[in-house]
């Protein structure tokens, strides 16, 4: 059962990824990414991270993607022309493949024995909000606060970037 779910989600994730890269219309890319994100959420569930899966769907697929949809709607799309960098088209897939191979080799050839397992037995409360919340507020309080400051900064930045300037008459 687990394998089926895994392969299904993996195919969904990969398909979404390839879709993002390959599609001409940026709106279709956004939609492909949403599919990808949902598949990833499923994978997270398979890894006993319930909270993260939910967060992925709500934050990522929900808020962030909606933002993308709005911007694509405002800006419009279509892949612009002009390819001045020689060799880029050829080198890019090559490098990507090289990267993939190296990463895989690096991980798999490492002497991590635990990789070959499914991981230790965890109690059912693993990955649930209570566990994550406890960690957040006890051990990782500082990163938590820092992250919230960063969100604030991003919000301010967005306001500044999008705000009207004197010379804009729109």
């Amino acid at each position: 059962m687990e394998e089926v779910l895994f392969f299904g989600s993996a195919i969904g994730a990969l398909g979404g990824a390839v879709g993002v890269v390959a599609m001409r219309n940026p709106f279709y890319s956004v939609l492909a990414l949403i599919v990808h994100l949902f598949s990833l959420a499923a994978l997270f569930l398979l890894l006993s991270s319930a909270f993260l899966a939910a967060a992925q769907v709500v934050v990522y697929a929900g808020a962030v993607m909606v933002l993308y949809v709005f911007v694509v709607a405002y800006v419009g799309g279509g892949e612009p022309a002009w390819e001045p960098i020689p060799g880029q088209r050829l080198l890019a897939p090559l490098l990507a493949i090289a990267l993939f191979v190296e990463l895989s080799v690096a991980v798999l050839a490492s002497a991590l024995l635990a990789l070959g397992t499914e991981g230790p037995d965890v109690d059912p409360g693993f990955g649930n909000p209570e566990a994550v919340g406890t960690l957040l507020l006890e051990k990782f309080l500082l990163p938590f606060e820092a992250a919230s400051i960063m969100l604030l900064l991003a919000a301010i930045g967005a306001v500044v970037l999008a705000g009207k300037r004197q010379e804009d008459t729109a």
Partner: protein
Amino acid sequence: MNIEWYIVLSSLLFATGAAGILLRRSPIVILLCLELMLNAGNLALIAFSRMVGNEEGQIFALVVMVVAACEVVVGLGLIVAIFRRKLPLNVDELRGLRG
């Protein structure tokens, strides 16, 4: 499933995102590919968290998600600003950093 499957999937997704950044010219799509890479990293983190047996990896992945969200906000704000100034939304034509 053994953890190594997830790791291999994660590196595959990462490579795909990298290829996308190198191949596409629209800044929006490049940002989307960036999201791909970040999510691939998240997947790896959570897989390792499961492998080790504690939730610290998940906290890390949560923070990564926060970072990604902020970065998307700023990036899209930039794209909107560029669009507003009637500049071409083409990464190749925005060459101000040329030295």
